[in-house]
């Protein structure tokens, strides 16, 4: 097994990690950096629970090899709050009641953040489209969609 030494930024901190060639970004975050907020729901890029920002874009971290992340800038759910102050979409998902079991929540929040970064005032159709790859089995989605709307409105 080949190992790769990579240097990347994770939630604003520079990290140097030695990763085997077959390790995914998801495994590296969880097993090497102890960032277990990012979840493994299918390991096949189908459920969105492992969504992180890679250079500002939402990606399924189970489908990205860690070795590809040399020089990348990664943001995980742990990196959304700043100095204990929640990101607005973290606050609105609480206010709207968009969290039940919480397993899809990290990926959902990252996808929502990515949407709001590229489109600060999305329509409901745009919100639905941006979250379509993030599966949730508990909430029925309506309150999550409301939370993203509320976050957008609060930022205006």
């Amino acid at each position, binding site marked *: 097994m080949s190992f790769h030494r990579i240097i990347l930024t994770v939630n604003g901190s520079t990290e140097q990690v030695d990763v085997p060639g077959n390790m995914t970004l998801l495994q590296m975050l*969880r097993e090497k950096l*102890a*960032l*277990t*907020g*990012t*979840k*493994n*729901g*299918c*390991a*096949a890029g*189908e*459920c969105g*629970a492992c969504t992180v920002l890679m250079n500002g874009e939402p990606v399924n971290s189970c489908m990205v090899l860690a070795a590809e992340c040399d020089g990348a800038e990664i943001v*995980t*759910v*742990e990196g*959304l*709050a700043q100095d204990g102050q*929640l990101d607005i979409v*973290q606050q609105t*998902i*609480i206010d709207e*009641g968009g*969290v*039940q*079991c*919480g*397993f*899809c*929540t*990290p990926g959902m*929040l990252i996808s929502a953040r990515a949407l709001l970064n590229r489109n600060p005032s999305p329509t409901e159709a745009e*919100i*639905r*489209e941006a*979250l*379509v*790859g*993030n*599966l*949730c*089995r*508990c*909430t*029925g*989605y*309506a*309150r*999550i*969609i409301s939370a993203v709307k509320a976050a957008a409105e609060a930022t205006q």
Partner: protein
Amino acid sequence: MTTASIKETTNIGVSKPRVDVREKVTGAAIFTDDIQFGAGLLYARVKRSPYPHAIIKRIDTSKAKALPGVKVVVTGEDFPHRTGLYLKDRYIFARDRVRFVGEPVAGVAAISEEIAQKATDLIEVEYEVLPGVHDPVYGASPEAPLLHPDLGNYEVPNFIFPVPNTNISNHFKVRKGDVDAAWSQCAAIVEHTFRVPHVQHVPIEPHVAIAQVDGEGNITLWASSQSPFAQRNLIAKSLNMPESKIRVIAPLIGGGFGSKAGITMEAIPVAIAMKAKGHPVKFRLTREEEFFTNFVRQGLVAKIKVGCDKDGRLLAIQNEMYWDGGGYTDYGVNITRAGGYSGSGPFDCPNVKVDSMCVYTNHPVGGAYRGFGMSEVHTGIVQAMHMLSEKIGMDFAEFLKLNVVQEGDKILTGMTMHKTGIKECIDKVTQAVNWGIKEPPSAPNKRRGKGLAVMWKAPAMPPNAGSSALVKLNEDASVTVLIGGQEIGQGSFTAMAQIAAESLGVPFESVKVKGPIDTQYSPYEWQTVASRLTWSMGNAVRNAALDARKKIIDMVAEAWGEKPEDLDIKDGYVISYKTEESISLKDIVVYGIPKPDYSGWVGGPIVGSGNFMPTYVTGLDKETGQGERAVVHYTTGAQAVDLEVDLDTGQITILKAASAFDVGKAINPDLVKSQIEGGFVQGMSSAIFEEMKLVNGVMQNPSFVDYRIATTADIPKVIEAYIVEAPQDDGPWGARGVGEHPMVPTIACLANAIYDATGVRVSNPPLSAEKIYLALLDAGVVK
């Protein structure tokens, strides 16, 4: 005390924020797979049967054992005891034969998941393939091969009725009145067979469990589990060990819906860890395994016949149900029982005949799934009622209100129905969708229709399923509530904090309810299932908080020389109504209160304890299903939708969905509404998308791409939730459960609406666009 006095409260009926929410939005919440075990961790993988039914002729594990990095290989030879939640019909690893595709045959632990997988591939198993059973009606017939020749010898509780020398592992019967004599009195009769396919729970968190066995043989299991106490008990039974040697630790659960109740894959890492003492052994299911190797929702074939008089009053209900139980029915037998004793649906009818049969097949193993049989039962019985109302020429809402069960009715099992708000539920949802008003579709190629359905469901559990709780006060006057019931997303920890705060007289914010549930330290709870926690565990928490309250008041009364009845606890202070003195709970609840002049102390650390167990549930007669009180209560409800069917594609668009449930009392209305909304969408997903496609016992679609669940793109524009409150006599503040119920009526509700829109009945889910379009084509509605 179990019946709470109804008085003005500040914590009950109030939508307090979830106690677990901040950690869930920051990523700090710990789920089972997040626990770090260090370098000694081993990974388990399982060798599974590729055949639905076969004799195991030979297993050769020598190549797997020789692979570097492999620590342990086990087979059924190592674990000879049968286990199972109700019917003890299964082994941890198959021993003589396999009965479904995916059944564990051997287990491996290795230093990496890759090596463990490679080792399972090296295990050689020689099978003799046997003919299979792939349909429950055939399985129940004398022609079918016998899947469990030893059925008559399996250990089983006295309320489950296996039929030896058949594939019927439970035959539950109801005989009320005389249906055969009633048919001739009927002005209208409907007969129809309904088929409900297998579906999967699909929690976003796959099953995961880690086991470690110490040098003394003590077992610790960390598991994503709805049932840490039941798992401890079942593992103890299957390993022939005392419960005290086993500790189950259950962190937060990433969705369960019943799939993490009872025991399935959790025994596997335990079995392996026993051969690798000291090492933690982690076993996690892949998403593919999650689909067919674990509990599934059983398929159902229901042959239904219903009849009414000329005024639309029900005269007879006959429901013959064949449950596709799968290769093992350790849990399925009780789903069949629940399906049987609720098999009439929520209707008052003088003549009822139900036969509910759990049938062994060579399909994946059935287990609890949100609703515990009720979605499947209601799919048929409520559609049949809709068909009957049309035949007799009555508006369906009127027909339902004429026939739904009411307080005082003798239900099918002879139990007297308690107070229920089902009619109010019907009113709420019919008003919400403008029932009775035909509204135009949005385009010429669309048809618009409205659907309505009702439901009931009782907690399905052993008659004496118990709860217990401890309420512990801390130096800073914060309150720790210890419970054994799980936070599975439904908000149980929040509801328990509200109940404890209200009962004790302290601010909600001062009450801490946290996981993990740990059988070594948490008080006993049967299982987090059956929508029973708010009611049962809520009573236990209330009793524990009242016990702590009494101890505090007694202490202060003694210190102040007052009578306890003159004292109260409000907002974290003990107050005297007599002297108007007050004292903060801070410090006194741990250190006690000094007597005057250094003459000693009163009190000590305060811990309250409480429990709850229903003591009034009676058995049902084996031949007639009659008894005084088979269940603790029924939660009822109604659902209505307004939808459009696209004639060009068969696709449906739900314009509005409205649900109303009688929850007795909503401890936290917003969390109740969240359950109702989320449950509707799960029900909708199962109704229009979901089906495990089984061909000769092999699932064809075990991935999220091929087994589609609802996404943000699919949900209705408007989802409304209504709360109805007809108090439960033994619930805390009158509460009863609602966790499962919201998805129960949905299949029937949508099928009825599609019929209303198009005049074509598509009765068997999934009500997919393809199926609807083909039905429209068949009926000549489209060409």
